[in-house]
């Protein structure tokens, strides 16, 4: 299964200077791989370097993590109604 989300972001120094990122879409894809627990160690290392200096990528990282957490934690989980569980059980029993 997936690893849980990193609870804190990688190194985010205040001195991040780069205002523009030339490969923002690629960075975004990599950020998503990392948050999904699907990135290789190399990809993680590469992104960490980018996040040390790149302002837009730092913002993207925070946004992606926020949206993912929103979906995982804030959405209402619907539970299966008890009547449906009962119906399925009785239908199954009549099968054999």
């Amino acid at each position: 299964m997936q690893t849980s989300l990193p609870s804190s972001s990688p190194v985010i120094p205040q001195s991040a200077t780069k205002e523009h990122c030339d490969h923002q879409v690629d960075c975004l894809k990599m950020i998503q791989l990392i948050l999904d627990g699907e990135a290789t160690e190399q990809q993680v290392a590469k992104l960490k370097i980018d996040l040390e200096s790149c302002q837009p990528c730092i913002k993207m990282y925070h946004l992606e993590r926020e949206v993912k957490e929103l979906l995982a934690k804030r959405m209402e989980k619907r539970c299966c109604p008890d009547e449906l569980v009962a119906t399925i059980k009785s239908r199954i029993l009549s099968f054999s």
Partner: protein
Amino acid sequence: MSDTPTRDDRPAGADQMLPIDGNPAEQPQADTPARGYTDEQKYRIFNKEFMPHIDSMYNFAFRLTTDEDDANDLVQDTYLKAFRFISSFEQGTNAKAWLFRILKNSFINDYRKKSKEPAKVDYQDVETTYNSEDAETEHTVDLRAESVSDLIGDEVATALNSLPVDFRTVIILCDIEGFTYEEMAKILDIPIGTVRSRLHRARNLLKEKLRDYASSMGYKEESDE
């Protein structure tokens, strides 16, 4: 009957790796090794490996159909199919992914046509549109994490529901149910690369919806496009 189905709590480590054998939503494949389970074994598998996932299944069905009655029917059909084709399930493999795949196929085959969702966008159309303007899809959405963090669950749900169903599906599977890309590829019968790119697009669409919410709530975005 000693082993009647009961509703168990989800066991630890319920997510073993695939493979998912057969395709119970259609006919079982000819090369699927039929497992000669006894009735007692069938009920035990159903009870111990299938029923613990029923809340996740219901949640998935409800997110797909956005309708309680349809979700009820879809979950019931899926579990009956799962029992009928239980011989194509290998005991101890990833039951959750196997069940999700049946549910997804049932939804496509039986429910999608009569689905009550307002935006009836066929994935094929969406895919074509998106591929034809690749530059447009390869973008980032300007939205601040702070404005997202104030949104409530209902707003997220509405934003998610407004996405075309195939985009909605990958987000549900990945972010809500926590499947890996590999599991998603098997549930959806698509290559892992497609899982990745569809997720990327789905998230861009979702962020655009969330941005609309955030701005309608009066949060100031830095960019003004």
